[in-house]
């Protein structure tokens, strides 16, 4: 059962990711991205990490990609479509080198001890994750929260630059 689902959804995810890359219009890229993230969430679920899976949907699909869609819709991108075409030479070169690169990475990964170990399922329930998060990684967590605060401010400033300039002029 798990195996079948894994196969279906890994193929689904990869196809969706392909859709992100090859879609001519950014809105379809965004749509494919939603699908890809959804597929990933299901892969996480198959691994038994339901918490991470839900976070994936909640944050990635529910918030980040919505932002992308928003921006795509805000900007009038119709005329971008003609610009967005690559020449064959670089395309083939990029494909080859990326393929080679991932091959090498896979080699490296397969050498790592983690990937030689048999299936030792980690404690993936929320309790153990949060215990770890609030003890060993507390500082990381706190730094991240400060970082997020800075981010909120900077995003506001970036998004409202024009508005603020106007306000400063008055």
């Amino acid at each position, binding site marked *: 059962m798990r195996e079948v689902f894994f196969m279906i959804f890994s193929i689904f995810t990869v196809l969706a990711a392909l859709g992100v890359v090859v879609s001519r219009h950014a809105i379809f890229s965004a749509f494919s991205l939603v699908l890809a993230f959804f597929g990933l969430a299901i892969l996480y679920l198959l691994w038994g990490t339901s918490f991470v899976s839900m976070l994936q949907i909640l944050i990635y699909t529910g918030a980040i990609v919505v932002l992308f869609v928003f921006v795509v819709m805000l900007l009038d991108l119709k005329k971008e479509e003609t610009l967005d075409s690559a020449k064959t030479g670089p395309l083939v070169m990029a494909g080859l*080198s*990326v393929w*080679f*690169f991932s*091959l*090498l*990475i896979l*080699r*490296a990964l397969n*050498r790592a001890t983690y990937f030689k170990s048999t299936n030792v399922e980690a404690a993936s329930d929320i309790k153990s994750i949060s215990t770890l998060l609030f003890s060993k990684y507390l500082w990381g967590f706190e730094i991240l929260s400060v970082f997020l605060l800075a981010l909120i401010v900077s995003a506001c400033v970036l998004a409202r630059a024009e508005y603020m300039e106007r306000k400063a002029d008055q």
Partner: protein
Amino acid sequence: MMEFLLLSMILIPLLGSILNGLLLRSGSPARTGTLASTAAGLSFLAALLLCWNYLSTGQIVNVNFEWLRVGGLNLAWGFRFDAITVLMSLVVTGIGTLIHIFSIGYMDEEPTPYRFFAYLNLFLSAMLILVTGANLPVMFVGWEGVGLCSYLLIGYWYEDIKKADAGMKAFVINRIGDAGFLIGIFMLFQIFGTVDFESMKLIVDGSGSLNVRWLQFAAFFLFVGAMGKSAQIPLFTWLPDAMAGPTPVSALIHAATMVTAGVYLVARMGFLFRVSPDVSHFVATIGCATALFAASIATAQRDIKKILAYSTVSQLGFMFVALGVGAYSVALFHVMTHAFFKALLFLAAGTIIHGLHGEQDVCKMGGLRKHFPVTFITTSIAVAAICGLPPLSGFFSKDAIVFAALTGPYGGPYLWAGLSLASLLTAFYMSRFYFLVFFGEYRGNAHPHEGGWAMKLPLMDLAIGSAVVGFLGMPHGLHVLPNYLDQLLVPTVPGWEEAHAFLTEIQSMVVAVAVALTGIAIAAFFYLPNPARSDKAAPKLLAIDTILKNKYWVDELYEVVFVVPFRFLSGVAARIIDPRVIDAAVLFPSRLARAGGTLLTFIQSGSSQFYLWIMLTGGLLVLWQALKGLIV
């Protein structure tokens, strides 16, 4: 606990300086001044506690932090509170606090008082580093710190180009002395392998195998440093010019504390000078010459602060004579008494200048005893003290110096005679100053008024000090009180055996008092009956009047001998050496790098995709190298 006190004594003024400089930038003179005075007062309190601790337990407080460790040099931020420091830190913080308080009144119309008080506090801190430093480099830090503060404060009114120039002059001339000081430090490190006072002293005391010639050289260079800081011939010209600064600065830095740093240095290194007879003779000779020379100039000056400045130079000469003849404790004694009465005189001058709205010419004063009652009384005490009238402080310390010049290890009759003449001149010019300012009729056109309590209180305190501190160092010959100061200092500075001389101590005192009275009498003869006219007439009787008025043309001489050739050399360097040699050498690599950069600019195309291409290529190469064996 004591370590903490020692550190806080040094750091509290620094803290005050930082607070004033950073936080109270818009503060009124009263606010900034109160903060600065509080800092100084706390520092004084700490000094008192430390002093009490030292006197009751005899325990020397040491604080050490690692500073740098290079090869054989193991340098610490070492601070040390011993006998000399007891004396110096009390003088510095005590008189410093009084002058801080005085400044609140004196600077009451300043637009940027925070600057003044920040510098003043910084000076206090630097001076305390100087006197508590346990090794020469730490002392040098304080030494440069006080030099910096002196420069900043002389040029405090930097809008006036003359005052800014005076600051610059002080700084540059001090650099000459500092160069000597540094060379001295290097030589001492070469000789001893350490620069710590205690270690050096142990080596000098313990072994006779040291090369006296090199020691003498080192001592000589240290003395060059002292010459610069303490305004001895030939590096004295900056001190009179330094009077451009606010008067409290002149009182604190250029009379009471900083200029005595040279004396302190020589006294601290007394163990070294003790074994360097040639340098000691040199020191004494320079001191005696300076004392005479400056005193003679002071007799013809009309600027109230210039008179006091030359008087300071002259008094410093007295101290160096004491150092030169080997009577280190006596020199320090005079440092202390001089700090009191000279600070008092300067503050009195400050009160008068403040009350006359900036008038500094003594010929335009007169009759001020009616307008400045407190100043008049306190100044009378100070003048009597500096003239050497018993039983005021100046009498004991100056007499001790004069007597030491006769009987000290390196002393002799000619020094005694020189100092006696200088004492005569001192009594003359101080009385002249006194009579011109306070007697006769008022000759100016301002509305004289005395300052507030902030200015009066320090005057009174200093007057009391000037009157009584002399009893701490009562000469042995009188058998009235023990010589507390000698008892205090003997463990730290070399003592001395009085040589047999043609005068006993009592006889010497009688002679000194007679000399002082003679000086006063001459001044009274010339200036008391009709100050206005006599100042113009009397000195003109002497042919040397013009010479004295122009201060022996020393500044002009220096201008011709040093400044002009140096300017020429600088011009040559600026026009030829700098652009052709140094710039070329510096610019060549930069041009080379720029050329190489131009070749590689295509890499920075601005296109992030291109950057990713480069990253990808690099990643491929790295991975390929790492996994070569596995893939093929």
